[in-house]
């Protein structure tokens, strides 16, 4: 590989899809005609295929009880008073950012209430 203008590591990065498009195009053109690079590519592909032979069975358990408990606790916490405070704070921030909308909404609401009273 010493006289080769593409380094072996670069070639590996190309086959791993790790090169930028322009660089990948230039490597691709080269590989199409270079038997040395094709051999290296085949070697690396062979390693990947053999490694894939080490398979792992899926785990026996689904979600553990402690995880379910943690999720439930988190949900309850989000519904706790602090959660509501946060919710109101968020609402207030949205309103403060759009005071015009808030004014319109209040006016509309007042009209609706008056209409409702008349009915």
């Amino acid at each position, binding site marked *: 590989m010493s006289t080769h203008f593409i380094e*072996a*590591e670069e070639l*590996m*990065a190309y086959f*791993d899809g*790790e090169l930028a498009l322009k660089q990948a195009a230039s490597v691709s053109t080269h590989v199409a005609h270079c038997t040395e690079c094709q051999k290296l590519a085949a*070697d*690396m592909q*062979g*390693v*990947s295929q*053999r*490694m*894939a*032979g*080490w*398979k*792992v069975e*899926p*785990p*026996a*358990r689904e*979600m*553990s009880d*402690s*995880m379910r408990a*943690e*999720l439930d606790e*988190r*949900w309850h916490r*989000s519904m706790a008073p602090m959660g509501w405070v946060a919710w109101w704070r968020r609402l207030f921030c949205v309103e403060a950012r759009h005071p015009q909308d808030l004014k319109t909404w209040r006016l509309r609401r007042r009209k609706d209430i008056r209409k409702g009273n008349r009915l």
Partner: protein
Amino acid sequence: MSDPDETLMLAFQSGSRAAFDELFARYRNPLYGFFQRRLAMAARAEDLMQETFLAVIRAASHYEPKAAFRTYLYAIAMKLLLAERRKQARAGLAQPPDLAVFQESDTALWVRQAIEKLDSYEREILMLREYEQLSYDEIATLLALPLNTVRSRLFRARMALKQLLEPVQDLT
């Protein structure tokens, strides 16, 4: 098209249980594989997989999508793995391999034994690439290494493994 992991994590942060269930379904098997290949103890691998998700739940409110979610997830898993190894070393545990785990095919046994002979850094990089399918950039972030170092070590690991696997290959 399914939602990206980061979107799901943000949805979970806002209270969506379904988003967490989806993340769990996506990463349950890969995370279990991560621990099992590195510890070879099925029960412990399962515990650590669950602990990783527990850590995700507990830290959800602090989550910021700065990096890919899976980098974040494997960073937690890596910390737990290192802690487990330290614990085993302190206890002087040369843990006997769980034979149930090693009821594996000849190919798996052959590959596992060859991988064990690699330099520890190179082995980790190679496994993260081949089994966890992480990009070079993600591996670099996870192991706090420069990108070029990841690339050169990965190349060395692949070439070394090719050599280690060759003698058996000749017999087949």
